[in-house]
């Protein structure tokens, strides 16, 4: 019998075209390559310059998400005027996909959405696969038990041309979250607490595997939220072992196996979880039952505190990190020791590949139902895909948002990275369900508090950073 192996190790070994050798990286086969408009044009140009075809268009899937408008009144013709560069980039993706026979979910296609929302939604990302995309939040797909990670544009070209990547084997890091979450504490709070603990470079060189009772108890969309932000902890990938929750989620999805192939796949997928006795390079454990709703105060996702807490005082920060700490607080116009709860805000954004799935919108709608957003507050609700949008409209969630006074938008990345015109004005504060609070991320001069959809919805009602448990009680 072979020695015990981790989930990561099993997937890695299955995809080795050639193993690592003295001074040479491994050649790793890619099962699914996801493509979007922003990080692909230069890769297609590289192929054109070398006269190379796309090796496996049947393992490649493209969508438009980053620079697409979410304002329903902006049609193709208006976009050309409002954003000629963004529009040209979308045209380029269309032409590249047509030329190479790559399936593309373009504007108007009902399968279109944020790349990391549609992959699982279509059943395209499956346990045991390798999945890559020119996008750091590709780690999301690890929620189904796939080894999924972001790559640069040069590597997008490598995969287009060869379906392979040159990679060194990363180390493994078990992130164990025991216990049961309290009321009002959700997947987003877990991952913000993990990053606050490990630091944003804590996972560099590693792949996370999330284990423990609190992770097992999450539904698939919660698991996607956790894996999505692995990169904010420095890990290129985050994995969760596939289980019955995973299989129930995937069964019947358009690209998932069916019939005999489904049964064969299940047998295979059940062999993937980490073997008893397998060793990780590093391990950390958090007590899930002690977690509280989390919110960030600074300019990276590791600068997070329990919502009832306060911005750290200087003496809690290591001396060599104080300059960067103060730079962040200056940007956020906050003081050491200041409490965030009750801080007035200008915008609430519910969306992004972290928190724009149906369950995220449902959580926000349940808080907002029968209530109104605060006077003068702008609230954007941006579904992650056209399918999520349609389901939310069918089930009445969209009406809840509209009745509350929020803006109900078309699917896309939107204000997460503010490439499409949805952005904060300089100096504005937002509670956002997205993944990055970097300086200017949501618009030049904009200030972001990252939080869960529950916290975002509660804050939408009061116009201030708010503990959802106070609204619900």
């Amino acid at each position, binding site marked *: 019998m072979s020695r015990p192996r981790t989930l990561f190790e099993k997937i890695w070994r299955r995809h080795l*075209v050639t193993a690592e050798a003295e001074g040479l990286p491994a050649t790793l086969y890619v099962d*699914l390559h996801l493509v979007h408009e922003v990080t692909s044009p*230069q890769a297609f140009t590289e192929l054109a310059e070398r006269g190379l075809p796309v090796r496996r268009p049947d393992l490649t899937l493209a969508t438009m998400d980053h620079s697409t408008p979410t304002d329903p009144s902006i049609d193709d013709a208006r976009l050309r005027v409002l954003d000629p560069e*963004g529009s040209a980039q979308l045209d380029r993706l269309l032409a590249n996909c047509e030329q190479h026979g790559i*399936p593309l979910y373009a504007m108007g296609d009902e399968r279109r959405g944020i790349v990391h929302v549609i992959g699982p939604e279509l059943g395209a990302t499956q346990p045991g696969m390798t999945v890559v995309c020119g996008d750091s939040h590709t780690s999301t797909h690890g929620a189904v038990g796939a080894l999924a990670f972001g790559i640069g544009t*040069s590597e997008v070209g490598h995969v287009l041309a060869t379906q392979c990547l040159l990679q060194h084997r990363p180390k493994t890091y078990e992130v164990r979250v025991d216990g049961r979450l309290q009321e009002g504490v959700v997947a987003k709070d877990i991952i913000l607490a993990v990053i606050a603990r490990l630091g*944003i470079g804590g996972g560099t060189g590693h792949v996370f595997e999330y284990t423990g009772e609190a992770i097992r108890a999450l539904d698939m969309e919660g698991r996607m939220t956790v894996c999505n932000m692995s990169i904010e902890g420095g890990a290129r990938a985050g994995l969760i072992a596939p289980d019955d929750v995973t299989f129930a989620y995937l069964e019947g999805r358009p690209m998932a196996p069916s019939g005999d192939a489904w049964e064969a796949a299940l047998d295979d997928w059940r062999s993937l979880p980490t073997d008893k006795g397998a060793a990780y390079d590093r391990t950390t454990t958090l007590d899930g039952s002690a977690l509280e709703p989390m919110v960030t105060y600074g300019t*990276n996702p590791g600068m997070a505190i329990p919502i009832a807490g306060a911005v750290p005082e200087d003496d809690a920060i290591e001396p060599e990190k104080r*300059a960067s700490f103060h730079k962040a607080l200056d940007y956020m116009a906050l003081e050491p020791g200041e409490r965030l709860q009750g801080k007035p805000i200008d915008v609430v954004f519910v969306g992004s590949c972290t928190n724009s799935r149906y369950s995220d919108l449902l959580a926000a709608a349940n808080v907002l139902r029968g209530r109104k957003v605060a006077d003068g507050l702008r609230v954007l609700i941006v579904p992650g895909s056209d399918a999520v949008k349609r389901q939310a409209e069918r089930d009445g969630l969209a009406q809840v948002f509209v009745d509350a006074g929020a803006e109900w938008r078309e699917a896309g990345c939107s204000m997460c990275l503010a490439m499409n015109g949805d952005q904060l004005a300089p100096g504005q504060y937002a509670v956002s369900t997205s993944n*990055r609070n970097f300086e200017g991320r949501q618009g030049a001069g904009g200030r972001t508090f990252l939080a869960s959809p529950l916290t975002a919805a509660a804050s939408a009602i009061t116009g201030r950073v708010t503990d959802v448990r106070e609204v619900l009680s």
Partner: protein
Amino acid sequence: MSKSFTRFTGTMAPLPIQNVDTDQIIPASYLKVTDRSGLSSGLFSRWRYRDGDPEGEPISDFVLNRAEHGEARILLAGDNFGCGSSREHAPWALVGYGFRAVISTSFADIFRSNALKNGLLVVPVTEDVSAALFDAVTADPATEVTIDLEARTLSLPGGGETNFEVDPFARRCLLDGTDQLGYLLNQAPAIQAFEAANAARLDTRSD
């Protein structure tokens, strides 16, 4: 395409900030390009210009705007440089500006990989070496260091040198101009054999 890199001597631009993310290196508003050029004006634009606008007033105390660092081609940065987004536009912008190397105590994984594919050398150093370099460049902006990729050494301002780690394959590619895509394309027979032995479970065109 990487340009070859063997030995480089130059001055340093100090950026003593930790966790510089790729959104700061090149903001998302510059990502609408469809080629790799023209990004240097966007490099650190939010820190470099008033309102982040390259047409606007330069922020005089930002390192790239200080005359004494105008010729620097080595960026000396704080820990965990290049975290966040996978955008390869970050090394394109740094290289477009003229940087040949970045020295830091650590680099984010994707940035490191992207940089090395674009002839931008990442030089990891210990905290002590980093502190010594910041001290030296603060005392004398004209301080020069030499990065020798062949020997994997970085000269120290007070004399002596330190070794640094670099991925051996990336090093070889930078030294002899090996093209990584060409290297992969040469593995076509092995890739074909892998595909023959492992049937795909998916056809993205089937939906």
